[in-house]
């Protein structure tokens, strides 16, 4: 099946209204809902919630997304299939879906920051020495040879302001 996805941005307070509208106009197959951490993208620091709803024969579908601070109204009652996704999104991105099921889905409680947020530091990456920081050593009788780059090397995927050991 070859089809273009139609994306549409929605204001957070219109989220439930938009979902109801879509369901009423035949897009009542709820496919998925997830989060996107926008930090460091386009200078934004919010999280985005994205949902995909389709017609049951998959002939047409809509992707809607909205910028959220930390809360969004749950659509669990409108599209029951969204419940697990909301719970997953809540524990992975730290978004509260008001009016929805708040039980944890996959993680144990008290495990710290939501792991899929960029601000969640992977301690192992901070505590482990990154072997890529090494440069060819200069040894010729103490004489400086070789081009040692002044640029401090950083491991990929580790933001600049992360702690260093």
């Amino acid at each position, binding site marked *: 099946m070859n089809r273009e996805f139609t994306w549409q941005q929605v204001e957070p307070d219109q989220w439930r209204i938009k979902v109801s509208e879509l369901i009423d106009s035949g897009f009542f197959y709820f496919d998925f809902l997830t989060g996107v951490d926008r930090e460091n993208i386009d200078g934004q620091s919010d999280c985005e919630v994205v949902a995909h709803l389709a017609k049951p024969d998959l002939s047409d579908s809509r992707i809607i997304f909205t910028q959220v601070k930390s809360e969004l109204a749950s659509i669990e009652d409108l599209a029951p299939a969204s419940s697990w996704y909301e719970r997953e999104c809540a524990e992975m991105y730290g978004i509260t879906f008001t009016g929805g099921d708040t039980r944890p889905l996959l993680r144990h409680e008290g495990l710290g920051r939501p792991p899929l947020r960029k601000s969640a530091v992977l301690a192992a990456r901070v505590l482990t020495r990154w072997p890529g920081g090494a440069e*060819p050593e200069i*040894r010729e009788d103490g004489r400086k040879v*070789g081009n040692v780059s002044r640029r401090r*090397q950083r*491991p990929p995927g580790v933001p600049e302001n992360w702690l260093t050991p």
Partner: protein
Amino acid sequence: MKHSFIALIEDKCTSCMLCVRECPAWCINLDSHTVEVTEEGARRPKKVNVLDSFDIDYSLCMYCGVCIDVCPFDALAWDEHRALTSTNREDMILGIADLRSSGNA
């Protein structure tokens, strides 16, 4: 070719550190130093990196092949299968001598 061992072709390695930096498991360790070499007829000496040590920690390696992919000098290659088992985790760190290709990749 079986994707089950990564061999280092020592002579081709320029100690450029690309594989070390790209390895997602951070399991390659490389030590090198720079010397000046004056080739016959050349005006100025050339700076050459000399490889001192190159280790892959096979207890951590996920056989993703990223290192092979990023090496601009084809100094890393998939090699014939060598089942790597050990009674000691430190012994799974293989150095230059143990990383040589078996010759029948």
